């Protein structure tokens, strides 16, 4: 890369800031000396204030972002605080905050896990399709098509799940409950409307697929060509090449893509709020019941006041912490991966 920031070592010291720092990046040493001793630098102080102000406000903007993330946590904590000190009987359900939040945390995790179980294999396969299997000329277009999936607003997925998908799946749920009802997760009686946890999980999966796909695709494309060609030259079939050269290289990327998808599935609101008809925590995925944190907030916040408001904000805080941890792990894996991905 010619546009890189790396300069010849002899200019490293002179290129802090101000005019004429790296004139010499592609020239010879005598020129460097020439420039560093000329009077350009000292000629004028005009504009120095502008420099200071500009770097100051851009620094401020950067710090502001950190402050915002920090204050998200602080404000949520402050507004949530009354919940933790309140009398347990005043909390919804009457058994304290833990008893209130635990079922919906579990519900959130169940929905996200269903979504991931469906979306991870499909997402990775689609990424492979675009990066290694599709005809070269069409691959770009296919990439755009999958990106379209990500562009559709979540409320439209919710409406689609509510009106189109749930009634379709209801018949399938009845069959599941009748034939596989002995497995706890398919225990009947199945919901007549199809507005169940499984439907919510499927809608979430549709929303997570483009995330997993786009990130995995990036990593698959970074696989060193030499590794792939070496595998093929040894007589490997395409799948053997993918398994031996592409997948090992991309493993950290796949893991973090899945984690980011998990973060999205955990925090997704509208799809669940519209698709799921909420209720108490039940093991069966085809019965009405269960609830997720995000949907609980969205459904109840508009009418909430007083302690209920604090309670919902506390629920939001719990969601924030969970997704923050998931995202930080994912980002950590990606950053670590970046450092040694310069294999080629």
């Amino acid at each position, binding site marked *: 890369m*010619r*546009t890189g920031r790396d300069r010849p070592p002899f200019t490293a010291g002179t290129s802090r*800031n101000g*005019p*004429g720092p*790296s*004139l010499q990046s592609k020239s010879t040493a005598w020129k460097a000396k020439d420039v560093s001793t000329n009077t350009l630098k000292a000629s004028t102080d005009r*504009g120095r204030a*502008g*420099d200071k102000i*500009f*770097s100051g406000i*851009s620094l401020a903007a950067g710090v*502001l*972002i950190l402050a915002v*993330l920090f204050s*998200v946590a602080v*404000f*949520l904590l402050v*507004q949530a605080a009354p919940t933790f000190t309140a009398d347990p009987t005043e909390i919804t359900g009457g058994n304290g905050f833990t008893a209130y939040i635990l079922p919906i945390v579990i519900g959130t995790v169940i929905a996200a896990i269903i979504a991931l179980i469906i979306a991870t294999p*499909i997402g990775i*396969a*689609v990424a492979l*399709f675009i990066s290694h*299997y599709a005809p070269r000329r069409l691959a770009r277009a296919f990439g755009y098509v*999958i990106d*379209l*999936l990500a*562009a*559709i*607003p*979540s*409320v*439209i*997925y919710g*409406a*689609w799940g509510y*009106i*189109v998908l749930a009634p379709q799946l209801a018949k399938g749920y009845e069959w599941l409950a009748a034939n596989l009802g002995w497995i706890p997760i398919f225990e009947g009686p199945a919901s007549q409307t199809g507005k169940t946890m499984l439907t919510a999980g499927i809608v979430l999966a549709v929303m997570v697929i483009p995330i997993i*796909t786009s990130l995995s695709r990036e990593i698959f494309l970074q696989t060193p060509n030499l590794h792939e060609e070496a595998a093929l030259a040894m007589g490997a079939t*395409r799948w*053997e090449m993918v398994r031996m050269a592409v997948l090992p290289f991309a493993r950290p990327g796949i893991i973090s893509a899945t984690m980011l998808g998990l*973060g*999205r599935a955990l*925090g997704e*609101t*509208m799809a669940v709020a519209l698709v799921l008809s909420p209720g108490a925590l039940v093991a069966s995925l085809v019965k009405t019941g269960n609830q997720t944190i995000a949907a609980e*907030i*969205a459904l109840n*916040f*508009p009418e909430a006041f007083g302690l209920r408001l604090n309670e*919902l*904000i506390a629920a*939001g805080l719990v969601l*924030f912490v969970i*997704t923050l941890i*998931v*995202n*930080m792990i994912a*980002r950590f894996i990606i950053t670590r991966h970046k450092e040694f991905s310069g294999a080629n």
Partner: protein
Amino acid sequence: MAANQTLQRRQSQLTRGHLPSYAVWVVLAAAVVLGAALSSLIGFSVIGWAVISAVVFVIAATIVTAVGEGERKAKDRLVTFLVYGAFLIALLPLVSVLWTVLERGVPGLNYNFLFTSMNGVTGAVDNQAVENGTPVLGGAYHAVLGTLQITLWATLISVPIGLLTAIYLVEYGVGKNLTKAITFFVDVMTGIPSIVAGLFAAALFALLFGPGTRTGFVAAVALSVLMIPVVVRSTEEMLKIVPNELREASYALGVRKWRTITNVVIPTAISGIASGVTLSIARVIGETAPILVTAGFASSINWNVFSGWMSTLPTFIYYQILTPTSPTAPDPSTQRAWAAALLLILMVMLLNLVARFVARMFAPKTSR
């Protein structure tokens, strides 16, 4: 003569153990026929036919390859089928969603829908429309206005902050710890659930102006929490690909660093920055959850983002579906919801297209 023979032998060696290229198509045809037969046994439906044919085809083709070409080739072929199949499965929801929105949205998308609000449209009005078969009254004008205002304010907040942060990251803070921290947390911020961003804005304004403060501006703040990281990331990428030679040429002429940034670096990268900003607008314009908890819901036009509740297209869709205006006759509400969904998708697609267009047409001529 001898050379010719070896050539022939080599060719046959190279092609030995290969099925003829039409083998797969024969298997496919057989699978389709078999699928039709099997699905008509259990009650014919196109979906059942397609699913059974696909399963039969994949299994049969794998077995045929295993017999004819060996296990490794069979595995390779199986994976190829599965990968193609995954792509087709991923397309299904996309096609279904777009088809649903078009089919149900087009009838409702008329002048009346675009240019009237829901002010005065009650359940009785809807009931009458259903009984008499008259056109559905009421529309999403107020929601369109709300969407535009809130998104505009969110953009006004996020773009300067995002742009300046990206400038700091690329031009001033290279290699500093603060830069690493900002980059990391910007990445983390992209993963904040949208409803948490909404709660943050709600909690912030509840502390400042008393509980229950819900205006369009609160929603704009919530959206900018979601928007800033996207703007930062895209702008950062764009600033990074501005060739260093341009900066150096500017410095060589004695131009100050900040003038170099505003007059050389940013103009060079402006197409990418603009397309990134457009994409981030497309991302937040469809957000529902933060609006629900920050701007409330309105059925009439509100021009003031600083006071009063406001509706946006996504919340309009949500409420029209979940709480129809007339509980006994939900059809008019559903129709309005799908028309609004179509309008929203059109807006998002348009923004995406504009972003791609801007990025392509005004791309800097780098030496790549």
